[in-house]
């Protein structure tokens, strides 16, 4: 019996338990000669009470059993006569065992090692034996707990209160997943980065200027893990080029839509602009690599920059800027809308034109909000992956020439992790160190941005 079948069987029995619990409670209700209030909770809750009793202990048991049984299975298989021929200890033994296990579970068809083939049968026996024990125990638990709960059903059983307590616990657990995820991200990044920094000095990593990752250190101990070129490339594309495109376009769009556009134009244009943010980044990346980059290179060559690369920082940055436009625009929109209308009206009443009011009153007043929005946009731009992977190239150049190729943190993470998959080499672990830097920087940017925006909101409240 596979675990999926068992799971469905337990759930089905839970349904049966629900039905009987409800039935008993309902009969108590109709049998009692007095009023409805004889039963503390509605029959439904009694049904749930029995069902939860039937399912939950068995489910917990199944989880524990799934985690514990592999060890038990291996132990049992090792007591078989075939195990006596195995080499004692070491890597060979482990390899044979894992191969035999894979075949026994049906993940692999043929054994490379004849010894593994001999271990398959004991493994199969042990697996089916322990699966049988687990299934029988789980089903017994379902019956025992279900009957126990069913016997408890009495008119004054506070079934609803108990169900609600369990539900509250489930709600709390669901909320805790967010914390667990955050902690999980942080711990996994820190843990793997620590392993990386035990091989490569953090100073070399953070302040080195040569990025040329090798699995083994060079003759003078250089490892090629200097990440400064990557940081520069990330800032150059995400915080400089993309923002040069996105800030003017986003800000002016927001101003036009909020201050000038007729209502109808606004209701149509706003969603159309939002589409720009909804296009998957892989589409932008393809667009940048296929259309924008060659065009820019031809343009650069025609104005006499012969070194122009077909994977240019400019192409990736411009396309990323386009992607960010709706983001900047909606943040600017919010902060302009938050400026008290008295300020605007006052300026207009003094005879200032619309544009003068916007430039001299609204924008200065909304500036903190706009700056916060731009910081959020930057944090999104530097974490963006696909556009730079497809359009920005892999050469770690420290250059301010937008037509040359630069590389970014995210590009290198993808590059490092999609090549060889040796998990202990500094090359793969470096990806986690880069990820940690990226995580911390985006987190800080977000915290600062939110604080700026919040402070500024308070100023006008």
């Amino acid at each position, binding site marked *: 019996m596979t675990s999926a079948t068992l799971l469905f069987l337990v759930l089905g029995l839970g349904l049966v338990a629900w039905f009987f619990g409800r039935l008993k409670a309902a009969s108590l209700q109709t049998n009692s000669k007095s009023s409805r209030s004889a039963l503390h909770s509605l029959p439904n809750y009694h049904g749930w009470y029995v069902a939860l009793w039937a399912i939950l202990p068995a489910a917990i048991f199944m989880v524990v059993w799934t985690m514990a049984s592999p060890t038990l299975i291996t132990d049992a298989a090792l007591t078989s006569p075939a195990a006596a021929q195995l080499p004692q200890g070491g890597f060979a033994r482990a390899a044979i065992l894992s191969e035999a296990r894979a075949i026994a579970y049906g993940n692999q068809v043929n054994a490379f090692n004849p010894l593994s083939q001999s271990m398959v049968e004991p493994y199969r026996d042990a697996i089916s034996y322990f699966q049988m024990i687990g299934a029988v125990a789980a089903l017994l638990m379902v019956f025992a707990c279900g009957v126990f709960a069913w016997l408890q059903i009495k008119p004054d059983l506070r079934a609803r209160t108990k169900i609600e307590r369990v539900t509250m616990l489930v709600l709390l657990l669901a*909320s805790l997943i967010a914390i667990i995820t955050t902690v999980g991200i942080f711990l996994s990044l820190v843990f793997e980065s620590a392993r990386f920094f035990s091989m490569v000095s953090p100073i070399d990593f953070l302040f080195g200027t040569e990025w040329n990752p090798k699995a083994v250190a060079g003759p003078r101990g250089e490892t090629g893990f200097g990440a400064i070129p990557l940081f520069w490339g990330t800032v150059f594309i995400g915080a400089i080029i993309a923002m040069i495109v996105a800030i003017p376009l986003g800000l002016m769009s927001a101003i036009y839509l909020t201050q000038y556009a007729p209502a109808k134009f606004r209701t149509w244009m706003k969603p159309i602009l939002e589409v720009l943010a909804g296009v998957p980044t892989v589409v932008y990346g393809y667009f940048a690599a296929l259309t924008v980059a060659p065009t820019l290179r031809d343009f650069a060559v025609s104005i006499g920059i012969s070194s122009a690369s077909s994977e240019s920082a400019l192409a990736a940055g411009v396309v990323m800027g*386009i992607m960010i436009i709706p983001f900047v625009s909606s943040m600017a929109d919010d902060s302009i809308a938050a400026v008290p209308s008295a300020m605007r009206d006052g300026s207009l009443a003094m005879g200032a034109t619309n544009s003068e009011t916007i430039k001299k009153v609204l924008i200065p007043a909304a500036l903190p909000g706009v700056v916060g929005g731009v910081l959020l946009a930057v944090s999104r731009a530097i974490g963006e992956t696909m556009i730079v992977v497809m359009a920005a190239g892999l050469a770690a150049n420290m250059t301010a020439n937008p037509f040359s190729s630069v590389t970014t943190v995210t590009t290198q993470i993808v590059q490092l992790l999609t090549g060889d998959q040796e998990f202990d080499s500094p090359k793969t672990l470096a990806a986690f160190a880069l*990820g940690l830097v990226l995580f911390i920087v985006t987190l800080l940017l977000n915290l600062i941005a939110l604080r700026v925006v919040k402070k500024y909101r308070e100023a006008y409240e």
Partner: protein
Amino acid sequence: MNSLADTKRRPTDWQGAEMQKRIAGRYAAERRFKAMGMAAIMLSVSFLAFLLVVMVGNGFLGFTQTELPVEIDFPAATGGASPSQFEGPNANANLQVMGLRDIVDSSIEIQYGQKGTDLFSPGGWTAVNAEILSNPEIVGQKTTVYLPVVSDLDVAYKGEGNPESEKKVAELGDQLSTGFNWNFLGNSDATDPMQVGIWGAFKGSLITMIVTLLLAFPVGVLAALYLEEYAPKNRLTDLIEVSINNLAAVPSIIFGLLGLAVFLNFFGMPRSGALVGGLTLALMTMPVIVISGRNAVKSVPPSIREAALGIGASPLQVVFHHVLPLALPGILTGTIIGMARALGETAPLLMIGMRAFIATPPSSITDPATVLPVQIFLWSDEVDRGFVEKTSAAIIVLLLFLLTMNALAIYLRNRFETRW
């Protein structure tokens, strides 16, 4: 300084030439500013239009294939095989025994000379196989089938090939025709651009999305309900809120690193499977659902809760019987938007190994799978010119998928959302 002194002495001459010029200048600045705003919007929209035009223009050709007619004389080639052989469960085996591929190849050679098979896509004969299975009658007669040509010729016929292929196309002339590329909708990844298809990746996307939805939706909704309705004001609640807001802003690639370190290396889940992909995307989508869910729950007026409490409902009954159903349209809208984002996501899935060459569609959540955006990324890396239009065609499929989801979200919002 002089003019300042002047204005102090006598009232401004509003009608004077100097003032008129100044006002005209200010109005001109106003017009310029307004035009700049309009230009910014138009520029942004034209970027979008340009992107869509390029993709559709390129991708449209990906749905077509260039074909050549091949006349197959089945009775002569098979020595009189009867159509009834190719019905029922043994049909495929019988076709293999018959040596369909050789029959097709020799028919091609009869018609197009010794090197004729070079003109055709290597996997093209499978089309004949499928044709016979759906209509065994054709085995009993002389039939003309249209088979896809090799990728180079296909590209050349569509107008961008190398000179050699251009010459061949000119030689073949009118014999070439354009047909709908059913392979593209039905096949999976392949090495020959004429045989690639989107179905494997599409199915992978569907399975991954189902896993994501099943995990992220319940957790997201329950967390939103807890935070909005029950959470006491304390440290833990603050911590939960901060975590959720942070998770919503964490770059997607970081989730990929989490998936790699935790799900694959720590828990040892199967690599490249839709299960791990769905789990990773669920962690990414959950904060989006929580945030939109909280807004939807918040917008349900307190009078509803008070009325329910007033007639004796317990706090949990209030929420599950009244608040949740009323907030559900808003929650669903937010969920669909979050799912649309997850559907277009590529980077985290690259981290957990969903970038393998997958030639058979996945049939379970642990089978190696790929998804539409990753497939697009993989094809965009191919050197063969034939993959360009396939990539764009895959992008069209992805965009249509996204468009459908967003349209559904807008429909739900307009149809069910109550304005209180």
